[in-house]
């Protein structure tokens, strides 16, 4: 026995030098480890090579430097006064080198998910972890464990511990069923995702940012979008911060039980922002506005120009859509005929928003009328022309006035409609135009130009000239009279 101990110590010293890079802090294994007598339990094993059941009291081993739990690869290795002892049968001693990679990987994971992982802080977790390791390194020899019962009556007291550790190990690489999914939701709303793989317990209970919260509730992940959000939600696996040590008594060296990379479970969340645009029509002077139903808008992606959706306002004048991040442009294509359409409305959805409410108020279409009265022949403006403007549908007089010195009448903000102009008094020297001149106001902000031309009336003298030949007649009468008189005198003389 002494020979064996000496041999083990020598080997341990040699291995220590070789594996110094493995960050074994102590000069010797013995200096590094100690027995924690607060953790003791009974274990029933079979003697190696026999069928006799042996009861031994096991104790927890820790590393001095950090109290990290140490698990023995070999069953029933004992430290007596800080010295490795108790190797029952050197021939059956298991060395790490005899274990397959799969076995070593599993041992490392068992140690990782065992005592010290998450809420695994009670001694039972240490006992169960050690027993699971021995079940791999010494299959068939480990039979049962008890806390302090000398009767060694088998029980299922540790079955739940075994099951949980094994489950964690088995699911070490398993991700939640919604891993990598893209989930669409609306800012301000909450959705619940159920993990059908049942591995949510591996992760810390929740994350919370300014944009969202994601909390694990049993097998469900409850996500609440506080604002608009587009991105990943990362769930971080719980870690065993007190990393355990694997101890191989035969070779007197320690190995890290492994450092499984903390897993991240992510899913992509598109928390859209609810957009509500409400359209009203009314009169800015009275301040009375009424929701406009049936107004139709086209929503475009401002960056690509692509039509996203055609929206129609409801009875409340509202149109609703949930939008992801981006720039948008709202363009009205239909509405009450006599009222203005909105100017294209551009807006941006960002992570700072929980909702967007926009109100659109529009008044009646109005345009300015510029009426000009000009000379038909010269196009010069004609002042002082009295005109009247009537509603073409009702014949109601809406305006009466005279042209200014330049022949202009400017009427601001004439409302949508059909009208006609009548000339009531033409300027002096011009003919009254009896025709109705129609015009319509159909678009807002236009300048409607209406020109009425009057033709000039010139004063003309009487241009008929009849020559009655008065002088010729008088002359002829005089001649005839003279001849007549002469003949009469001649006859009378005879």
């Amino acid at each position, binding site marked *: 026995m002494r020979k064996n101990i000496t041999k083990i110590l020598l080997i341990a010293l040699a291995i220590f030098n070789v594996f110094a890079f493995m960050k074994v802090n102590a000069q010797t294994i013995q200096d590094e480890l100690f027995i924690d007598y607060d953790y003791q339990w009974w274990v029933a094993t079979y003697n190696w090579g026999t069928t006799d059941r042996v009861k031994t009291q096991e104790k927890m081993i820790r590393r001095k430097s950090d109290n990290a739990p140490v698990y023995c690869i070999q069953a029933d290795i004992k430290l007596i006064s800080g010295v490795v002892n108790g190797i029952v049968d050197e021939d059956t001693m298991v060395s790490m080198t005899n274990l397959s990679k799969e076995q070593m990987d599993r041992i490392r994971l068992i140690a990782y998910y065992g005592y010290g992982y998450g809420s695994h802080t009670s001694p039972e977790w240490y006992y169960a972890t050690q027993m699971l390791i021995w079940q791999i390194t010494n299959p068939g020899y480990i039979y049962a464990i008890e806390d302090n019962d000398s009767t060694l009556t088998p029980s299922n007291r540790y079955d739940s511990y075994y099951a949980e550790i094994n489950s964690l190990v088995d699911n070490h690489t398993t991700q939640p069923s919604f891993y990598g999914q893209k989930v669409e939701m609306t800012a301000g709303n909450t959705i619940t995702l159920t993990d059908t793989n049942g591995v949510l317990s591996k992760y810390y209970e929740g994350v919370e940012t300014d944009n969202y919260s994601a909390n694990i509730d049993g097998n469900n992940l409850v996500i609440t979008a506080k604002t608009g959000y587009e991105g990943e939600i990362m769930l971080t696996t719980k870690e065993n911060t007190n990393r355990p040590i694997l101890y191989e008594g035969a070779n007197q060296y320690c190995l890290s039980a492994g450092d499984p990379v903390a897993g991240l479970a992510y899913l992509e969340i598109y928390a859209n922002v609810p957009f509500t645009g409400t359209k009203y029509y009314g009169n800015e002077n009275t301040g009375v506005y009424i929701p406009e139903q049936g107004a139709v808008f086209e929503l475009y992606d401002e960056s690509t120009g692509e039509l996203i959706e055609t929206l129609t306002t409801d009875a409340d004048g509202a149109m609703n859509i949930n939008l992801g991040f981006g720039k948008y442009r709202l363009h009205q294509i239909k509405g009450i005929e006599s009222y203005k359409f909105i100017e294209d409305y551009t807006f941006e959805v960002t992570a700072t928003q929980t909702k967007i409410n926009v109100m659109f108020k529009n008044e009646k279409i109005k345009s300015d009328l510029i009426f000009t009265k*000009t*000379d*038909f*022949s*010269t*196009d010069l403006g004609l002042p002082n022309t009295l005109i009247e403007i009537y509603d073409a549908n009702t014949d109601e007089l809406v305006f009466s006035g005279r042209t200014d010195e330049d022949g202009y009448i400017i009427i601001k903000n004439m409302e949508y409609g059909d009208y006609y102009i009548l000339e009531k008094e033409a300027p002096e*020297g011009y*003919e009254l135009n009896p025709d109705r001149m129609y015009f319509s106001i159909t678009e807002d902000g236009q300048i409607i130009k209406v020109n009425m*031309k009057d*033709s*000039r*009336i*010139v*004063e*003309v*003298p*009487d*241009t*008929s*000239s*009849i*020559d009655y030949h008065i*002088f*010729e007649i*008088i*002359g*002829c*009468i*005089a*001649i*005839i*009279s*003279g*001849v*007549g*008189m*002469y003949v*009469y*005198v001649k006859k*009378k*003389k005879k």
Partner: protein
Amino acid sequence: MYMLRKRKNNTKLLTKSRLLKVGSLLLIIIGIGIIVCKYFYEYNLDQEETTKIDIFFNEQTDVENETSSLASSFSNKNEKSSSQSNEGFIAVLEIPKIDLKKGIYSINSKNNNVDKNIMLLNESDMPDVTNGNFILAGHSGTGYNAYFKDLKKLELGDSAYIYYKNNKYKYNLIDKYEVEKTGKALIIKDSDISALTLITCKDNENKQIVFIFELEVE
């Protein structure tokens, strides 16, 4: 006594007969004189017109300072223009088709009278005014002064000329229409043309005819 009375009566009859003979001869002479004077007067007018037209063309180069628009004439009606003082023409109208060639007096001339000449109307522009309208009125009918009596023979496309300030303006007839004789006539002319408008009466009707000529742009 009887014989003396008879001789006295015969002497009275002879004297009366002689007076009647002289009176009849006077009547014949006066009648012939009236007719001759009238035709002589009209002949003189023709000669005077011809002479003035000749003078107009001869003096074309001297009238450059003539007012070019009626506005200046209206603004200073009391100021007699050079044409007014010497009673010369400011322009001449020629319509070859009806063998008409007649001078035009300035707007303020006492001779600018439709009963004497072709009359330039107050609303008229001079021919050199862009897109203006040179408006003339003249008599139709049987009188000596019925210078426009043959306008009715004109057809669309016929030409008329205005000589004014060393320029010859050629116009083509583009429209003619009738208006009621009310002392006023409606002038319908496009605003983008320079025009010559002639107005005269329609024979035997209470209407006037308006002839619109468009300036031919070279």
